[in-house]
């Protein structure tokens, strides 16, 4: 079903697997408690005890990078899931049935995509109050229009194809046609969009947390850590570098994967 091709897919898969492994291990074990402070070990340089050193509260940076990656990953995952599910339902129904509802929703969709997502996130976060769950919700809502649009276009195209026509002629119920017959056929395009959406979510989460609107301290998130690390650029450049590298690896891995899923998806 999926055309798994080229080298970039393999590299992407390797990076993503590595990050997933890191997140999985981090869920059960980190070298130190990522939030535990120690007055005796503030701003320690990388060494045997702390491979990436400690921050201004004496917290272990490696543990925090792992924990931050996990937090960023989960936020991205959940928000893409929200966007995808809502997008599937809205896009599927409007694409399948068409009509004035379709027209109206797509017009609304156009207007919403006119706002750069970051701008909309800034406004929305002021409504929902900042925090980890708000950011998931805000980003999730933000992703609905783009997913809905992709699903709608694909469904509308598939609808005209012979296999759907014959299924309908045979009296298969609409919902079954939509989700059992059409869905698997638009999966490749969808998967690629999911990967791209995921990357946008990672970037959006880290940007928002960098501005102080996402994950709240003392909890770690990659954007939050980048903000904190900025003051210590000269004394502890590894702090910013390790958090930045984690963002890049997450995005790079999924970016390469999305190509592997076949072609340029949009999101």
């Amino acid at each position: 079903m999926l055309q798994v091709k080229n080298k970039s897919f393999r590299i992407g898969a390797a990076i993503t697997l590595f990050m997933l492994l890191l997140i999985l291990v981090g869920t059960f074990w980190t070298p130190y408690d990522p939030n535990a402070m120690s007055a005796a070990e503030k701003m320690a340089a990388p060494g045997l005890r702390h491979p990436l050193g400690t921050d201004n509260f004496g917290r272990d940076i490696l543990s925090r990078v792992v924990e931050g990656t996990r937090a960023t990953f989960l936020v991205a995952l959940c928000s893409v899931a929200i966007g995808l599910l809502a997008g599937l339902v809205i896009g599927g129904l409007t694409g399948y049935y068409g009509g004035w509802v379709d027209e109206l929703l797509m017009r609304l969709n156009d207007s919403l995509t006119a706002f750069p997502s970051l701008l909309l996130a800034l406004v929305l976060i002021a409504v929902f109050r900042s925090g980890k769950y708000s950011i998931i919700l805000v980003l999730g809502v933000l992703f609905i229009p783009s997913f809905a649009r992709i699903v709608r276009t694909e469904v509308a195209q598939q609808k005209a194809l012979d296999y759907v026509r014959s299924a309908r002629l045979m009296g298969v119920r609409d919902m079954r046609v939509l989700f059992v017959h059409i869905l698997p056929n638009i999966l490749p395009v969808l998967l690629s969009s999911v990967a791209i959406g995921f990357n946008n979510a990672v970037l959006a989460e880290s940007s928002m947390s960098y501005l102080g609107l996402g994950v709240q301290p003392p909890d770690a998130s990659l954007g939050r850590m980048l903000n904190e690390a900025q003051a210590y650029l000269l004394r502890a450049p590894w702090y910013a570098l390790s958090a930045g590298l984690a963002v890049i690896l997450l995005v790079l891995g999924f970016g390469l994967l999305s190509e592997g899923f076949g072609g340029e998806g949009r999101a």
Partner: protein
Amino acid sequence: MKKRILALVLAVLMTAALCACGGGKSPEVQPADIPNGSAGEKAPGGEITVGIAADLDTSLDPHVSSSSAGTREVLFNIYEGLVKPDTDGNLIPAIAEDYSVNETADAYTYTLRSGVRFHNGKTVTVGDVVYSLSRAAGLDTGEPLVSELAGIASVEAVDDRTVVVRLKKPDAEFNAYMYAAIIPEGVDIAAETVGTGPFRLVSRTPQESVVLERFADYWGEGAKLDKVTLKVIPDAQTMVLSLRSGAIDMAERLSSSQVADLGDLTILEGGNNVVQALYLNNDYEPFRDLRVRQALCFAIDKHALIELASDGHGTPIGSAMIPSMGRFVVPELTDYYKPDVEKARALLKEAGYEKLRFTITVPSNMQPHVDAAQVLVEQLRAAGIEATIRLVEWAAWYDEVYKGRDFEATVVGMDTHSLAASGCLARYQSDSSKNFINFKCDEYDETYRRAIAAVDEAEQTALFKQCQTILTEQAASVYIQDVASFVALQKNVGGYLFYPALYILDLASMYRAQ
């Protein structure tokens, strides 16, 4: 062909690099050898750029008492009252040359200094003084703009140099409130900034900068600098970068972690003159129970907090008084609650809140409070209390927490407007509009009322001390510290002065060595 493309790419890069070099050259500042705070080569004139963490308030009306501390410390350079504070914590004559108080402490007489001019060139008259005080005390409207002046019954000009202020009831501390700005009559002060201070406001660009210039006709010694640009830098990390790069000459109220990376600059340390506390909403269900509030006090180790959040810099406190308030401070209250996790757990169990959870709302632009909150969360966790931080914008904090009183707990620093003890303590009266923690205690109200009315200074001091003891015993909030204020100055800038008790940035004494 190959070469042409390479050349194109190169050209683009070269242009970019040249661009960068051309404009970015920053002359290396030669460190002039000036000892901290001492005179050095005081060359008059010059200008400096100062980084400030928040833009000034919308209104620069000096009589708006709800103005933020950050705005008031700038206005200190533009407006003056009849008296003003000095660096020893005394009141010195300013627009008034002299003053006297009658025996019953309900009438104060001020003699004006002659030849004091406003920034618009006009001379200060008794008319201006009567107008200013009447306006601030709300004598016409019945609504005092400066709440400390609510006790004024009348303001009268006796002759063209003398003004008498009569009070509704005796108040021995009243002179401390006479910092209230004197403004020119007939000027819309909300729209036009005209004072008598050593600096005058030249321009203001929203979220960007405020420019002050030396006022040449100042009555006193006047400012040393010709011009000061206050640059708005709300991000703590960016402030450090700007200091390090030399983009700004000075910033104050920095945290120890902010200045740790600024080895090449002059670093001074003093107090912020704020009461930093984990302020508890006494109306929030669990915090209505004294035992819960006390449990929080026992759960927190303020010395460890100061060590973690600011490398041991900061003055621990045990009640609501700013530690530099001298005779009013009660040092033995500092360690009234010795850190004791077991005791905290026991108290919570007794109160029926074994699994206590609450949210600490913190204004995001205030790094020392954000840092303290992070340590608090960890310390509370050790006592089985689950606290979460919610960072909010300053405006939202003000709206929800301070004005709306819709919060569970918050970490901020409260400052005082005046050198009087009431500046720190008035807010805990049950009916005070500033009592945002909803503290209610009849004994406190009564003690405070007696303290205000007391004419004898010793008696009054004792009563104010008793007020603080009540606050501590009642665990009104978890008092932590006066946050250390670090001031970073480029090597060729000096003259920064620390004031006790008040939140002040005195630019007049600052200078730049040539």
